[in-house]
C-alpha cells in the first residue's frame, strides 16, 4: 500500500468518530455561542485545544465567570487522563518516525485512542494510517464546533442546553461499553465508577477522576500479580 492509501484507510476508519464529533462539536459550539463567546474564539479553542470535555468545561466556567487560572488548572486536571492514554499508545508506536509524534499526540482524544488501540491490536499500522484516522476526526470536531457557533443561537433554551450537554456523557458511555470485552475490565469499570463517585462527593476539587483511575489500575495490577498472571 502507498502512504496515501494508508492515510485514506485510516481516514475511512474515522467516520464513526466524525459522526459522533459533528453533533458533539455542534453542541459545544452552540453552548459557547449561547454563553456569549464569538465565533473566532469558538473555532480557535477547537483548533488549538481539541479536547471535548475540556472545552465543555471551559465554556461552563467562563459562563459562570471563573478566573483564567482556575479554568486552566481545571482543564489541566481533566485532560491529565491523556497522560495515561499517551503512555499506553506509545507501546505501539516504537517504530514510528519521531517527527510525527507531536502531531499524533496533539490529536490524541478519548475516542481516537479507543479506536486506534483497537486497530493497532488487530495488526501493525503505520503512521500514515494513524495520521489519516486522527486528522479526519480533528477536522470533524472543528467543523462541528464552527457549525454550532454559527447556528447554535437557534437552540437557546435551558432545555436544549441541558440536552446538548448530555452528548458528552453519551459518548463516554459508548466508549466505555465497547471496551468492556474482558471480565477484568468490567470489574475495573465498576471499581473506578464507584471510587470516582465516592471521591467526587468527599474530596473537594477535580482530583476525583485521576484518583479513581490510578487506584483502579493499581488494584488491577495487584490482583493480576496475586493470581500469578504477571
Amino acid at each position, binding site marked *: 500500500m502507498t502512504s496515501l492509501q494508508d492515510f485514506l484507510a485510516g481516514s475511512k476508519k474515522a467516520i464513526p468518530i466524525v459522526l459522533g464529533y459533528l453533533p458533539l462539536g455542534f453542541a459545544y459550539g452552540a453552548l459557547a455561542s449561547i454563553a456569549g463567546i464569538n465565533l473566532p474564539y469558538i473555532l480557535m479553542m477547537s483548533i488549538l485545544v481539541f479536547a471535548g470535555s475540556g472545552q465543555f468545561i471551559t465554556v461552563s466556567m467562563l459562563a459562570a465567570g471563573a478566573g483564567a487560572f482556575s479554568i486552566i488548572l481545571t482543564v*489541566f486536571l481533566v485532560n491529565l487522563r*491523556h497522560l495515561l*492514554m499517551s503512555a499506553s499508545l506509545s507501546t505501539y*508506536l516504537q517504530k514510528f518516525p519521531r517527527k510525527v509524534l507531536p502531531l*499524533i499526540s496533539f490529536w490524541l482524544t478519548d475516542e481516537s485512542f479507543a479506536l486506534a488501540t483497537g486497530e493497532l491490536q488487530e495488526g501493525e499500522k503505520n503512521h500514515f494510517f494513524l495520521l489519516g484516522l486522527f486528522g479526519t476526526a480533528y477536522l470533524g470536531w472543528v467543523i462541528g464546533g464552527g457549525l454550532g457557533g454559527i447556528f447554535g443561537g437557534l437552540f437557546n433554551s435551558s432545555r436544549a442546553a441541558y440536552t446538548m450537554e448530555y452528548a458528552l456523557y453519551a459518548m463516554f458511555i459508548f466508549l466505555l461499553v465497547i471496551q468492556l470485552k474482558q471480565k477484568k475490565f468490567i470489574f475495573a469499570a465498576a471499581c473506578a465508577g464507584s471510587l470516582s463517585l465516592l471521591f467526587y462527593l468527599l474530596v473537594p476539587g477535580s482530583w476525583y477522576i485521576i484518583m479513581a483511575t490510578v487506584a483502579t489500575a493499581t488494584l488491577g495490577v495487584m490482583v493480576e500479580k496475586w493470581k500469578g498472571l504477571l
Partner: protein
Amino acid sequence: MERLTLVILGCAVVTFLPRFLPMYILTRLKIPKVVVAWLSYIPVAVLAALVVPGIMAPEHKINLTFTNAYFIAAFPAFFIAWRTKNMLLTVVGGMAVVFLLQYL
C-alpha cells in the same frame, strides 16, 4: 493579552503536554510488562470515573430518580451502545431521552 485568548492558549498548553510527553519519552524506552498491564486498565477506568459522578450525582448529590434525566438516559444509551456498537446512535438516542424526559 485579552483574557479569553489567554484562557485558550493556557488550555492548549496544559492539554498538549500530557498528551505529548509520555508518548515522546516512552517510545524510546522498553516498557516493563507490569507497566503495560497497569496502562491497559486506564481507558476503561478513566471513562467510568468520568461518567459515574456526572450521571449519578449531577448536582453534587446522588439522585437516582426520574428527576435526573442524565441517569435515566444512561440505560438506553448503554443498551444502544452494546447492541449497535454505533457512536452516533448512542449519542442521539441518549440526547433524545434526556430531551423527552424534560417534558414529563
